């Protein structure tokens, strides 16, 4: 394993869940600094839950989680906040503040944490919104936008403080192919322009995996099915990894879509057939 450097994220025997319901057990991985790590896995396998732990919003049931070599859950409140200030986050549904316009949402961290003049803030905000293709929407409220637009605005807010750690929960889901590709390019540009930036992307978009991933953590069946560089992922013969990459459903998991006769009858009656 590589030596700890910069703002890498290390999971050691991490077990996470809600109450006493375990979602993921004994996950080990090192998401390296300066690269794009992708957390992939089926819907509901615990990707967002894992991300909430990296953000320190939830405590793990067992194991440790270190960010930049510091055990996140052993830090004092002050030091913990210092680490978390390094993180920019895109939540799965954007989590924009509904009572503020897009511009005010993106400006919020700058307003709260810096004494920059209004005009400068406005300029930064418009620049970040332009990066995600929303420069014309600064005065719209989040619920006046589509889901994909909210997601892009969420990314603009996540990068407004130029954080060395960027965490994105499904940045491309709900986007059309053009905007999805644009999102991928944005992440690649960020990696190129900010050397040492740790980018973690949760996704099940295989095209993004091909386009941007350097390192992959694949979750399956309540644990890590694979953790390593993307080339090693392609070489692996693990059957679940192969079926995921080949976008194939197991034959024995094919659902039976025929209806029971009495259900069919009831539906026919309702449809006047």
């Amino acid at each position: 394993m590589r030596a700890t450097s910069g703002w890498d994220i290390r999971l050691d025997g991490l077990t996470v869940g809600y109450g006493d319901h375990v979602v993921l057990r004994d996950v080990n991985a090192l998401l390296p600094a300066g690269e794009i790590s992708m957390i992939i896995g089926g819907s509901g396998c615990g990707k967002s839950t894992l991300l909430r732990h990296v953000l320190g919003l939830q405590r793990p049931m067992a194991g440790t989680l270190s960010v930049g070599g510091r055990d996140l859950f052993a830090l004092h409140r002050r030091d913990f906040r210092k680490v978390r200030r390094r993180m920019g986050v895109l939540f799965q549904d954007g989590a924009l503040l509904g009572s503020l316009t897009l511009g005010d949402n993106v400006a919020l961290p700058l307003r709260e944490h810096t004494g920059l003049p209004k005009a400068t803030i406005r300029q930064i905000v418009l620049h970040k919104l332009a990066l995600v293709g929303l420069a014309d929407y600064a005065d719209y409220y989040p619920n006046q936008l589509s889901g994909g637009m909210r997601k892009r605005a969420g990314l603009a807010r996540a990068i407004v403080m130029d954080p060395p750690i960027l965490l994105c929960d499904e940045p491309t889901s709900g986007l059309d192919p053009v905007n999805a590709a644009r999102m991928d390019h944005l992440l690649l540009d960020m990696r190129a322009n900010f050397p040492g930036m740790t980018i973690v992307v949760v996704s099940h978009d295989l095209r993004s995996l091909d386009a941007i991933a350097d390192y992959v953590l694949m979750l399956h069946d309540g644990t890590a099915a694979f953790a390593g560089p993307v080339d090693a992922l392609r070489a692996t013969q693990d059957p679940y990894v192969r079926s995921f990459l080949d976008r194939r459903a197991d034959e024995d998991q094919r659902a039976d879509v025929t209806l029971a006769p009495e259900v069919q009858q009831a539906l026919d009656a309702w449809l006047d057939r």
Partner: protein
Amino acid sequence: MSTGPNILAPVTALGAATLRLLGEMGAMFLFLADGLRLIFASPKQIPKILNQVFVIGSKSLFVILLIGVFTGMVLGLQGYYTLVKFGSEGLLGAAVALSLIRELGPVLTAIMVTGRAGSSMAAEIGVMRITDQIDALDVMDINPMAYLVAPRIAASLISFPLLTAVFDVVGILGGYVTGVTLLGINEGVYFYRIESSVEMADITGGFMKSLLFAVIVATVSCYQGYFTHMRRDGVGPEGVSNSTTSAVVLSCVFVLVADYVLTSFLL
């Protein structure tokens, strides 16, 4: 012995509910202490507080005017027919003004503001909780207590006394409308009796009540919204709806209980 648990069940349930309520009240006190401390966290709080004062005022002012006038008019009517039996209808002004300033102004204002602004505090913060907005604030290193709760408590402390004063004034005018305009009491007597009977202590008492009620309503409403996700009686939108209901019901109950306790100290 098989009946033992059945007989004890209601007692156990009552005990558990009482313990839960006490625990929750303790948690609300800590919540309030944190909120009060954070009012002074930074000068950036001032615009947020003013904005909330505007929100509370614009939501509640009209209903306060309406309820105030009618309360005063009813007091005038009831007071007149009671006092006239003793031939002392001249005291009507004093009766109306004292009931309003000492009791009805602060209490009815608090209950009206609970319905208008308290419920929307609970609902708004509750929605922010279930849509990750509060987590997003936390992650941006913006303390959600300082950003959402402290300005609402401060704004309530400013607006409750003002709205109570408005209620008292329009109530006294409402009493004037029934007493003087409709029932023919002498105008000079009405106002003279107010002036000679209302003391500064009555006004301070009413003022203190309105401050206490402000703290109660803002704390209970924000608390219910803030912890929507911890509710056991519903998740998601249902949780928000239950939080809003609890905010209104608990605020009103606490206001009336606190009113009794404070009144017994003041008298």
